[in-house]
């Protein structure tokens, strides 16, 4: 069965205060990086998945996000599926 590498990117929902991102932004400014705009901190999750095809891999990864990996109240997610090399 083909193998897929799933990359899930989970970010604080747009518009929500992200105190972690704000703290990182302030630290970057303190390091004298100029003109640092909005900084947001999320998390990345990599999953290896054996599925018959790309569509099934994507559908399953999205279900994983909906049921466990992301909290719909506070987070948005993106899923990228690549064929495993």
């Amino acid at each position: 069965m083909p193998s897929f590498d799933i990359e899930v990117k989970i970010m604080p929902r747009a518009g929500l205060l992200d105190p972690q991102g704000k703290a990182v932004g302030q630290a970057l400014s303190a390091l004298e990086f100029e003109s640092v705009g909005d900084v947001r901190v999320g998390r990345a999750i990599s999953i290896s998945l054996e599925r018959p095809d790309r569509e099934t891999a994507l559908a399953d990864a999205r279900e994983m996000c909906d049921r466990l990996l992301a909290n719909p109240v506070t987070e948005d997610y993106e899923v990228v599926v690549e064929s495993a090399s």
Partner: protein
Amino acid sequence: MTRVAVVKFPGSNCDEDTLRSVQGAGAEAFYVWHREESLGNADVVILPGGFAYGDHLRAGAIARFSPVMRAVEAHAAAGGPVLGICNGFQILCEAGLLDGALVRNACLTFLSRPVRIRVESVDTPFTNAYSSGAEFDVPIAHGEGRFLAREEELRDIEEQGRVVMRYVDDNPNGSENAIAGIRNRPGNVVGMMPHPERAADPLLGETRGKFVFESLVKTVEALPGGSP
């Protein structure tokens, strides 16, 4: 006698204080391990504080799938009282038994100190021994206690009087509307970030947390055919 199940997850750490507080209120308290599928005929279920599953991924995200949670969900659906304290509150939100979510404190640091809270709703199985508007000091101990909800959810929570407790004077974690505890629509499921079990004994300096446990006994004893 009122029977109270205190659920233990791997990483629970307030289970013994909670058990003793329940006993102090005159109820029979016993532990239920999270792998159990039954609550042992409990009248009331408490999910205590701690760091179930090390808070991996998000606080409560993994614990909500423990086998015992199916029994907790069934108990709640049947109208049985359920209380989540701190990590227990986080688990109830993740399980969808309560609205909203608890995220990283706005100050980004773990907070462990007493705060003053006001009891906003005495119409729950865990607050009916308080007088409305009662204020008391109670410890918090959390890194993820900032209560958030979608705009429409938050409006519903407020309009339906489902805020059970609010921080007074100082909103330690940046919660929306200084919310410290909420209930579900029917009112039988309550979650709170502060630790009443740490304010329920004269040795601890503050005892007004004990009314949370006295409330649950009062509730069960008032049920038709209640507790013998």
